């Protein structure tokens, strides 16, 4: 098969071999040469580690579900306990709220970082986004305790500004947990969103503008659809992170709205109820896997890894 240019003659016709992707079976059948074995050998410690430390424990954990009295009745017992259901609901819903907040606010910041023209503004925004990373989880808990407690900073400021007359109860409830988690997750939202926005082609909104769009319309109808896969990948990533939170709900939350992780902690430390803890963990794990798989299917592997980097 040769390629000929237009009728305006090229110097020579370049012969091209037909190109096709090597099929899966072909690649397996191809003799594993030394390079491939060497590559496999390089990965052996990794495989060993993942098998022993991730695969095996998780499988063992899932097997707990199947112990007597049996899978169905274990599941039924789990969902029969009101505490478990409440905790699961709180975990799923609060994580959703936090994810939504963090992606919405984070995209404002990320968009500003990408589009601002003043390097000072960019520096301030990036430094403020990096701030949560400077603090240990528990220190964040302390900081928010200071800020949100009855006579803490936020209440003081609000009272001095005469916005309220009595201090608000801002801590040891879901509000504090959500605020704390939003703070924690901000860098994890802004960074992937930044990567998404930075790879947008900014000539396109100008094209839209030249065709008569207002600024809002150009951004909404041109930039937003292009950024949507990256935003979606960020949402998936952050939601799964939020499901696993442990320290913040424990200290900032109230007794009436525990996270599943707190119920698990209680199960292990107070009740020595390992099977209950295991079932809760598996439920969380399944939720995480389902969500990530949905994300992979919807968005594609490249987007997800790019979002992580």
């Amino acid at each position, binding site marked *: 098969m040769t390629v000929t240019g237009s009728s305006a003659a090229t110097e020579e016709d370049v012969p091209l071999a037909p190109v096709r992707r090597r099929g*899966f079976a072909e690649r397996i059948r191809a003799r594993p040469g030394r390079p491939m074995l060497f*590559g496999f050998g*390089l*990965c052996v410690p*990794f495989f060993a*580690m*993942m098998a022993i430390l*991730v695969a*095996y*424990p998780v499988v*063992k*954990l899932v097997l*707990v579900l199947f112990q007597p009295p049996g899978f169905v009745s274990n599941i039924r017992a789990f969902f029969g306990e009101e505490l478990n259901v409440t905790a699961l609901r709180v975990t799923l819903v609060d994580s959703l709220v936090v994810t939504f907040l963090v992606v919405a606010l984070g995209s404002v*910041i990320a*968009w500003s970082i990408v589009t601002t*023209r003043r390097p000072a503004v960019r520096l*301030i925004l990036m430094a403020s986004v990096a*701030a*949560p990373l*400077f*603090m*240990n*989880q*528990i*220190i*964040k808990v*302390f900081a928010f*305790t*200071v800020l949100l407690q009855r006579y*803490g*900073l936020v209440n003081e400021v609000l009272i001095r500004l005469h916005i309220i007359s009595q201090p608000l109860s801002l801590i040891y409830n879901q509000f504090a947990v959500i605020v704390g988690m939003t*703070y924690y997750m901000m860098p994890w939202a802004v960074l992937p969103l930044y990567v998404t926005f*930075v*790879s947008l082609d*900014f000539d396109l*909104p*100008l094209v839209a*503008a030249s065709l*008569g769009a*207002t*600024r*809002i319309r*150009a951004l909404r109808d041109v930039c937003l659809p292009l950024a949507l896969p990256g935003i979606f990948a960020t949402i998936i990533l952050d939601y799964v992170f939020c*499901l*696993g939170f*442990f*320290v913040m709900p424990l200290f900032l939350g109230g007794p009436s709205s525990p996270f*599943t*992780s707190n119920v*698990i*902690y209680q199960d*292990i430390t107070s009740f020595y109820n*390992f099977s209950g*803890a295991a079932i809760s*963990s598996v439920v969380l*794990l399944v939720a*995480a896997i389902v969500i990530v798989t949905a994300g992979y299917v919807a968005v594609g*592997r490249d987007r997800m*890894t790019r979002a*992580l980097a």
Partner: protein
Amino acid sequence: MSGMGTLSASLPRGSRRGATTRKGILSAVLSPAGVVLRAVLVIFMIAPVLCIAVLSFGQEQTLEFPPQSWGVGLYTTFFHSGYWITALLTSLKIGLPAALLAVVVGTPVCWVLSRGMLPFKSGLQILALSPLILPAIAFAIALYGMYLRFNVLYTDTGLILADATLGIPFVLLIVKAALDRIPAELELVAMSLGAKRPRAVLEITLRLLGPAVFASFIMSFMVSFDEATLVQFLGGPGQTTLPKAIFDSARTGFQPVILAIATILEFGTGILIVTVGKLRGSRAVRADV
């Protein structure tokens, strides 16, 4: 949707300037709101850090702001305390080997993913990144069950292994990205100049990879240092890392010296983050396509 003035003002410098657009009513309302929102967000992000730092120079016994008396008493308490210094050393004792293990195990995988010819590369990548999506608590419980059975619970080794597993995804991301940007042809050039293959690999590619490997080491260390969930379940009295020590003391009542520790950690973490950023180069600014 934010930006001030014309559409070109809300687009980065590289795009063509001068194009103006009709400004809708919505954007006239949103612009000042956008500025306010961003100011509020910046304050929100920075306030907790400043709060802790300011409080650490107070002498109060309670978490009241602003403190009535000032001084560096909390810092001297920290440096003279056996308990907290031991906790810090324990964190180092666990974190450094964990980071080292993550780097040693993860770098070959990055090499294979970037240069190799194995058939299941995407699966390998997913596997390597899986600790990131594993809820920490589920991982902790899973390991708890297994460690209990194999008598590794409440040991240093167990915790180090667990933290190393957490660090592998970060090694993968950082080192693989760097390796992708080092052209494989450089080794061929070296070999054409007379070097044998191992020497070419060692002195050219690995040397170029050095900063990324070091950055991922720091990142894995930070992940392990910050880790508060695993250590709660897998660590016993001999593994009282700094987060665990703070966690334990927080349950019995507030100790002001924690503020001093926190500020020192903030400072140290800040230095580490800046180092990581410098080591990775200005990659965050370039579009990674």
